[in-house]
């Protein structure tokens, strides 16, 4: 389990909009949030993979976060972003981009209030009136691969 970036009461997370879901990304695994990167599609790729982009002088795989978590499509974001995160198990971390509709805010997520979950979603919690889904970035790359 990754070290939690907490402030004592919860896990510090970046909230992002992905389709109709609000997803929480552990802040200690978020490297950068940038305006949506230009992505070059790869023929024959799984639908979760949008393609390749350039970031920081390196090629970067960019994934569709809404698709990864099975979120219904929402309203088109007015300021789509790419969140560059470190993903995978601690012994094999790698940089990957997550395409999202918008970055919302940084907040504390009460880990003890998480329930449910499955696959990439470690659990869900209610923040105010919003249901937030905590994403388990260590499991990114283990989810079932959609085939076209």
């Amino acid at each position, binding site marked *: 389990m990754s070290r939690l970036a907490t402030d004592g009461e919860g896990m510090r997370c970046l909230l992002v909009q992905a389709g109709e879901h609000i997803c929480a990304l552990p802040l200690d695994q978020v490297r950068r949030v940038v305006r949506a990167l230009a992505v*070059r*599609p*790869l*023929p*024959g*790729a*799984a639908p*979760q*993979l949008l*393609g*390749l*982009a*350039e970031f920081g*002088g*390196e*090629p*970067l*795989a960019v*994934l569709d976060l809404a698709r990864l978590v099975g979120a219904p499509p929402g309203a088109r974001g007015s300021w789509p972003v790419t969140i560059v995160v470190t*993903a*995978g198990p601690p012994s*094999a971390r*790698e*940089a*990957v981009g997550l395409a999202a509709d918008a970055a919302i805010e940084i907040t504390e997520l009460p880990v003890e209030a998480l329930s449910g979950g499955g696959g990439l979603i470690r659990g869900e919690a209610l923040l105010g009136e919003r249901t937030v889904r905590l994403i388990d970035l260590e499991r*990114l*790359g283990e989810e079932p*691969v959609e085939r076209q």
Partner: protein
Amino acid sequence: MSGSSFLVMRRGGCMWAVPSVAVDVVRTAPRGVLLVAGETRLVADEVVAFSDELKLRPPSRILARLWPHPCAGLALYAGEPVVVVDPANPPPGLGERAQEPVGEMVRATLDFSDRLPEEGES
């Protein structure tokens, strides 16, 4: 492979590269550019460059899982990502086995029957 010469091309919105030494023929075609590498015919929208400055990185584990095609590595050219492939085993949309022997392809390339008319000719 870093330090070797690569032919960089564009196909379907993405940039691809193959080792230059593997390419036997490059010719224009109705669909773009045709390259022959051994027994394989590659189709490109355009040839971008010959470069000996591509720095190859291995594909990430996550990329390999979501795009499970043989890949010699990733690189950047002019700020764009490039997928370096083995011309003998191209990914979908990039290549196909040649329909005719390479020799015929080379003779076709050298065919001047549709050359431009010389001065004085109609």
